[in-house]
């Protein structure tokens, strides 16, 4: 009994990604058409060649019809998946398993979210009918709990903590400024980040990812078929998905300085990929920087930094674009916003570009292994996805 993985058995042979932003002129259907079209072109396949689809969206539609109807997919299986903010990654994971099993030769994973039609600030999620006793804390509020807990545990004063968090946002905006598909394409000075209006706890608006619309897609096949479609496929080394028992909000032992689900999914993924020293073996990563303290804690949960020392690595520039282990080279959620169903595939799109040497001004020198990490829920009660890909 173990997570055995499908190391090097599946390849990504084409990807597409729309610009992320406030697409007032496009609905979810338009975004899906744009991402899918780019993806077909990238893999140089006719839509009819794709045997099955996995569609990830949390709130922009129900059922496979959300995809098959606008694309006029001709009587093929389309599976709608939802797994909180890791929805896009979950679509990819299931598509990979489908081709690895031999059930299909070519599958597409596609994610979309149209957030800017709601008219509300921040992310809005409506759950099933309930008894009215569930916590109604907003996402920034729940993730803001990480910051004071981390600072207290590792002895950071308030000013240092603020500097560290601002440094994360600064880095991600620096990268996003070099990405034509990002929602925010401007560098933001550290002082402006630190002075931004408060949203929750010590988090200012510049500690939060934006709200945007977007879609991204990948076409996958068995590894042995990859070169039929492209000279530069990327290969799936590991896929791990973990849903936790949600004990953080109920157990006094939980101290809000780690995501147990992330630790578990990272361990699983490293085992699948044969990675023993992630700090040195992982060339680059796209991680779920929904809020700046999340990225800080993730550096430790993913094993990039020793416990209690991620803040030093952040300040020393370890995760900068030109640093030894770039994190969020595309700009992250911070620059892209977070259209739920699309984000996980948008992360993979950057790995695709980087591993193929197509990342332009953001190109990292000779990356070997890339990691994507996608998180959904709240500290202590979440789902976590980790993938590792390489050439």
């Amino acid at each position, binding site marked *: 009994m173990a997570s055995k993985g499908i190391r090097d058995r599946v390849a990504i042979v084409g990807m597409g990604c729309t610009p992320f932003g406030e697409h007032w002129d496009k609905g979810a259907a338009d975004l899906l058409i744009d991402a899918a079209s780019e993806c077909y072109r990238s893999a140089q396949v006719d839509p009819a060649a794709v045997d099955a689809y996995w569609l990830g969206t949390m709130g922009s539609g129900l059922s496979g019809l959300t995809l098959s109807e606008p694309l006029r997919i001709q009587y093929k299986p389309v599976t709608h998946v939802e797994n909180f903010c890791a929805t896009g990654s979950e679509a990819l994971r299931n598509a990979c398993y489908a081709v690895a099993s031999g059930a299909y030769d070519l599958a597409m994973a596609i994610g979309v979210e149209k957030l800017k039609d*709601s*008219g*509300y*600030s*921040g992310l*809005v999620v*409506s*759950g099933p*009918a*309930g*008894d*009215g*006793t569930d*916590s*109604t*804390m*907003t996402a*920034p*509020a*729940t993730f*803001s*709990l990480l910051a*004071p*807990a981390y600072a*207290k545990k590792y002895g950071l004063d308030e000013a240092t903590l603020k500097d560290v968090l601002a440094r994360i946002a600064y880095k991600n905006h620096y990268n996003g400024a070099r990405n034509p598909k990002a929602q925010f394409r401007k560098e933001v000075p550290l002082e402006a980040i630190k002075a931004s209006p*408060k*949203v*929750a*706890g010590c988090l200012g608006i510049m500690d939060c990812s934006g709200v945007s619309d977007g879609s991204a897609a990948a076409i996958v096949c068995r590894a042995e078929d990859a070169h039929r479609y492209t000279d530069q496929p990327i290969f799936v080394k590991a896929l791990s998905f973990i849903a936790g*028992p949600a*004990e953080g*909000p*109920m*157990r*006094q032992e*939980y101290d*809000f300085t780690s995501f147990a689900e992330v630790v578990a999914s990272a361990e699983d993924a490293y085992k699948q990929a044969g990675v023993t020293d992630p700090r040195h073996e992982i060339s680059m990563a796209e991680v779920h920087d929904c809020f700046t303290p999340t990225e800080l804690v993730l550096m430790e949960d993913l094993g990039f930094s020793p416990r209690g020392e991620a803040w030093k690595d952040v300040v020393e520039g370890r995760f900068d674009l030109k640093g030894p282990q770039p994190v969020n080279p595309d700009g992250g959620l911070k620059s892209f916003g977070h259209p739920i169903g699309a984000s996980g595939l948008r992360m993979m799109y950057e790995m695709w570009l980087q591993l193929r040497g197509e990342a332009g001004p953001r190109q990292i020198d000779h990356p070997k292994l890339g990691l994507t990490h996608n998180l959904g829920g709240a500290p202590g009660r979440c789902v976590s996805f980790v993938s590792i890909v390489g050439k």
Partner: protein
Amino acid sequence: MAGIVRYGAYVPFFRLPRTAFGAGKGERAVASYDEDSASMAVEAAREALRGAPEVHGVLFATTSPPYAEKLNASTLHAALDLPRAVSAADLGASTRAGIAGLLLASDLAASGRRTLVCASDVVVGAPEGARERVGGDAACAFVVGDDPEAIARVIGRASLTEELLDTWRTPDERFPRAWEERFGAEVLGPLLREAAIRALQEAGIQPADLSALIVDSTNERATATLPKALGVKAEQVADTLSLSVGRSGAAAAGLALAHALDLAKPGDRIAVVVGADGADALVLEVTARIAAGRPRHSVARWLAAKRSDLAYPTYLKWRGVLPFEPPRRPDPDRPAAPPMHRSERWKYAFVGSRCTACHTVNLPPQRVCVACGAADQMKAEAMSDARCRIATYTLDRLAYSLQPPVVAAVVDFEQGGRLQCELTDMDPTRVAIGDELEMTFRRLFTVNGVHNYFWKARPQR
């Protein structure tokens, strides 16, 4: 005869100085944005029931019922985790309803039934009118039962009824109206006096024998004239808390009675006279049991723990009088009847579960233990009186609230268990990890006419 066995009071945390209305002395108590007559009655009743013998029925008196149709006493019943066989009924439509409840409960005591009588009101008047200025929000509760267990015995009573248009409001109106004050004073004044004299006669005592005279009526002039009409001295007239709470509708006389009981000594006689469409009078004699029968919170203690910096426009928003720009956030989901019914003991009474295999407290109650995974081995764990401390917290400025920012915290209970909940009645600039808190029953919000009640944590008062 019957008597009061236990009692309790509740005065909300917020006060509005009367200078905010441009006139008047002192301040009025203001129910917070997350309180209503039912939630305040629960707070008073928790005080009265602590250490009390079991009750057979609940009466809830208010002129500001949260539901115009649907029992409100059942909200109290559920929040107090009373057995199903305890009856529940609402009394209302008049500020006399509170003393009416005490008189009814006295009658029930004769047939061996012990009754919890709660009176509570959120008093709303038209802006800049007298009712807004002199009114106040508060609650009181009494367990009324048989004589031998009483801390105060009923030794005399009287009721008079006359149809009288003094203060009135139709169901579709926000604010009550009042007839010319002089008319009401002329008619109600003598009724108050007559009821008082009849009750004193039944008690076999003279006005001069009273240690406290409590008077409340819909008519300020009539109220003011009774002491003189009875010939009682100024020092015999009880403090009805007009400068610190305000006239709290159906709860006013009972709150003053609770305050008088806080200060009473055995043998004291207290008269309560309440006028509206007639008058009711009750004469009580304090027994030797009083010292052991007092609640944890005296009225004075409730009065001392307060915040008096409420802005008048905020007050008007809380009461729904002043329209304001809605947030760019969706309305909260309306709680659904079946899940509310399934989780009644959690939602209303704050009863969690404790695993019998590993003794971990699970909040909310679970079937599978969060710590050891044992399935269906839980027993109920009452948490409403449990103390807790802030494990961590945040100020949520995105979440919508009538008193932003929302103070959201993770709290750890002394007896085990952790909960993520909202804090209330506090100064957001003074919250700190490790602060000790206690639980309070609140109305979180109202959507589509459904009141969503649940518990929050507040600093100890």
